[in-house]
């Protein structure tokens, strides 16, 4: 087999979005009947790579890509996903793409139904032919059998357990006669452990029948047990392409996140870290795409606590839930008092503030001047910067005080603007972020949630934002809970880093803990191994 031409080979694939390189010289190949595990953090380039492979229009729209894709030794150019499907590549996405009111059979045969022609076809075309349900059912059963599982061909998708849906989806892909390669993006993410096991078994079963598989997963132990070879992507580069034999979960975890940045424990001098100030107990938050299921966590007074984890695992849901922006439940206690959930005003009044990851949507009044933006929440919640007339009947903005306030923060955070009356939407991303921070600072909170503070801003501004958080914490003793996708950033500023996985806390680590430990937690591995960090 090693001498054969591989089924698929990617050669020197590179791609940049408007000068921002996301893939550089990615090459690897997939042999016939081989399973390749593709691993990488969010933003490592996996999704972009698969989009290129599938000829998604977004790639061509953003200037195409470099390098070449060879299928069976022939160079191929896919103009649309349908070309890729015709060439025998099937894709199973992370989200189910099934029709809920259709049966297993109807979904497997979706838009490839067997048909019987009749007189109406001659006049109105093929779409008037009647479906041949017997043949459809037969084909569906064949595909299910090929998977090696038991599925009821007549069950409606809406009544199925999640595992069955996943299998239906895979059965649909292998129902094509010519399917040679299957790409599975996080197929086990929604499955229980026993279901995942059965899935892995049937994937192996498929590979034995000669179908090649690219298996993308964050569950590293699945990758090590299933894959024949493992490709690790980091920052758009292939950092490792190795046979799976003898590779441990820990190895992959460190390849995945490993950067050679020095992380050290934060400087504690002159800071007073006290007792628990905020305690989460069984917190759940229904934030679409960032669902929090069961978070138990306590935050100490005066510390900077980092919350990290992969996208979609629920880290963003935590601050959004506490601050009442998404439906939430469970219990949150702040300074010993219960925090009423689903009530943004009460949360703010208790002395918590939130810098949202959605800067332009939640964070700013884009069409208003900077001083209003900075003073807005303080005016609403604390009644600051207002002047009372007629014994409090009429309250008007105190423009003078607002101006002073904004001048103060513009200098403190070195915000680049023409003045306090410039409109917020005219600023750059980094300066907008600083306005958001200033707005939260103006509330003089006891506890500050900061969500993705450096997303989408340039390197210099990043450092300034982090610096100002650090100083604010040191000078005022404000407790800060910082949520970020960038592990390095968390490790550089936080006293402790909690990692969220599948909607709950997988573990808490000190910033100087071994990088592979972070990787293991993020991948949902070795939850038990996670040592409780002592602050």
């Amino acid at each position, binding site marked *: 087999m090693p001498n054969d031409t591989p089924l698929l080979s990617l050669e020197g694939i590179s791609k940049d979005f408007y000068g921002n390189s996301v893939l550089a010289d990615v090459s690897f190949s997939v042999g016939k009947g081989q399973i390749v595990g593709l691993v990488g953090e969010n933003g490592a380039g996996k999704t972009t790579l698969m989009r290129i492979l599938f000829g998604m229009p977004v790639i061509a729209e953003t200037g195409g890509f470099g390098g070449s894709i060879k299928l069976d030794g022939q160079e191929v150019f896919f103009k649309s*996903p*349908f070309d890729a499907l015709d060439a025998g590549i099937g894709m199973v996405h992370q989200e189910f*793409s*099934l*029709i*809920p*009111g*259709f049966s297993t059979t*109807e979904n497997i045969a*979706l*838009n490839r*139904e067997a*048909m019987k022609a009749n007189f*109406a076809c001659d006049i109105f075309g*093929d*779409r*008037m*032919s*009647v*479906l041949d349900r017997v043949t459809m059912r037969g084909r569906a059963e064949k595909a299910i*059998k090929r998977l*090696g*599982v*038991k*599925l009821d061909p007549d069950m409606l998708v809406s009544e199925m*357990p*999640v*595992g*069955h849906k996943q*299998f239906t989806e895979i059965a649909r892909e292998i129902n094509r006669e010519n399917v040679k390669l299957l790409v599975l993006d996080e197929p086990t993410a929604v499955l*229980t452990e*026993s*279901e995942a096991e*059965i899935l892995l*078994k*049937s994937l192996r079963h498929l590979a034995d029948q000669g179908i090649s598989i690219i298996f993308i997963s964050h569950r590293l132990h699945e990758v090590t047990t299933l894959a024949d070879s493992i490709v690790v992507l980091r920052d758009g580069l292939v950092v490792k392409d190795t046979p799976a034999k003898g590779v441990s979960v820990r190895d992959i975890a460190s390849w995945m996140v490993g950067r050679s940045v020095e992380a050290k424990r934060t400087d504690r001098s002159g800071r007073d870290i006290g007792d628990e100030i905020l305690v989460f107990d*069984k917190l*759940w*938050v*229904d934030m679409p795409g960032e*669902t*929090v*299921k*069961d978070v138990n966590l306590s935050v100490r007074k005066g510390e900077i606590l980092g919350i990290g984890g992969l996208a979609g695992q629920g880290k963003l849901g935590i601050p959004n839930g506490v601050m009442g922006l998404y*439906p939430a*439940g*469970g219990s949150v206690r702040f300074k010993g008092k219960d925090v009423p959930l689903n009530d943004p005003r009460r949360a703010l009044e208790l002395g918590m503030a939130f810098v949202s990851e959605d800067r332009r949507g939640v964070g700013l009044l884009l069409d208003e001047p900077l001083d209003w933006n900075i003073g807005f929440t303080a005016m609403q919640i604390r009644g600051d910067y207002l002047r009372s007339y007629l014994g409090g009947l009429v309250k008007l903005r105190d423009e003078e005080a607002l101006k002073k306030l904004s001048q103060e923060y513009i200098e403190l955070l070195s915000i680049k603007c023409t003045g306090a009356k410039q409109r917020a939407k005219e600023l750059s991303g980094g300066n907008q972020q600083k306005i958001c921070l200033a707005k939260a600072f103006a509330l003089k909170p006891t506890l500050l949630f900061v969500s993705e503070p450096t997303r989408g801003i340039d390197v210099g501004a990043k450092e300034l934002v982090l610096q100002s958080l650090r100083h604010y914490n040191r000078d005022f003793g404000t407790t800060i809970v910082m949520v970020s996708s960038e592990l390095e950033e968390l490790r550089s500023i936080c006293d402790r880093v909690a990692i969220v996985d*599948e*909607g*709950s806390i997988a573990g808490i680590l000190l910033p100087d803990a071994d990088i592979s430990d972070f990787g293991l937690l993020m991948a949902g591995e070795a939850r038990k191994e996670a040592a409780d960090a002592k602050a």
Partner: protein
Amino acid sequence: MIKKTSIRRFFADNVVVIIFLVLTAAATPVSGLSAGYIVQEILTRIGRNSFLVFSLILPVMAGMGLNFGMVLGAMAGEIGLIFAVDWNIIGVPGLIFANLVGLPIAIFLGWLCGEVLNRARGREMVTGFILGFFMDGIYQFVVLYLMGSVIPMRSAAITLSRGYGIRNTLNLDSVRQSLDDLLMVKLFGINLPIATYLIIILLCVFIIWFRKTKLGQDMRAIGQDQIVSNASGIPVARTRVIAIIISTILAMVGQIIFLQNMGNMATYNAHRQTGFFAVAAILVGGASVTKATIPNVFIGVVLLHLMYIVMPRAGAQLFGSAQIGEYFRDAFSYGAIALALVLHAWRKMRGVEIDRAGLRQGVASAAPLEAIEPIKEDTL
């Protein structure tokens, strides 16, 4: 426990039907109308109205909601009838002629309506409603100004005395009840328009057959998830346009059947309420914005019209004024539409709430799923 919730569920799903059943059951004895009269009226109205109501089924199946845009089809049918009367084609041939004239107009208007609705996804119902008002203006322009001036009209009897434009009321004597009388059977003193019924049955068969075709399957898929359907290569926009075109054509035929039974036509008003009555009927029959079946049509037509028949008389008996009964029946029909729309939104919200319930008790509550049994190797 389970029984109790299933009863409550049945009630919640059919509350509109139940309210109408109770109302008409209470009003019928009060009205003092004879059973024979009521049965005759209902049977006539089934023949008159159900075809129009059927035109709503396909767009619901394609996920486009209740097609208020069917009014466009009704206008096409009326234009067909104007020409049939003008050319003095009598009886069933006149109806066929009206259909032939109306067909290209209905196809064009249906295509237009479909294209517009494709640009207003998620707001099909209100867009269709307003589109109906807009087209009403165009219709008035064509019928009131162009007919007789630009479009040659032969009969002076139907044009306004100023020489162009069509009279307010169009006498349809030439085609009056020609379809109903084609095969009228008298049974126990009750007249049954068998030919009309046959056409309606034919339409039912067509709808049942259509559901089984590839196009019907595609419409069902699109109705449930446009994104998934698109990803699997189903031409979503085109299929939605086809659904609206078929609906518009059916509405055209339905309006012609309706008007031949009535025997005359209010040239500028006949179509105004068509969409409203059809939508009220199908909702009263238990349909929703996302689901409509053949029984819904018949139940709805029977219930709604039973109310229309008995309410004015019941009002006259109770309050000495038929007017009050008429107020009631209008209020209840509008109420039925509003209630059905609110219920639809409420059910959607309840669905989200049920999904969220899984989160409330934390991870442990994630419902245990039945394990999938692997098949042994040797069985393959």
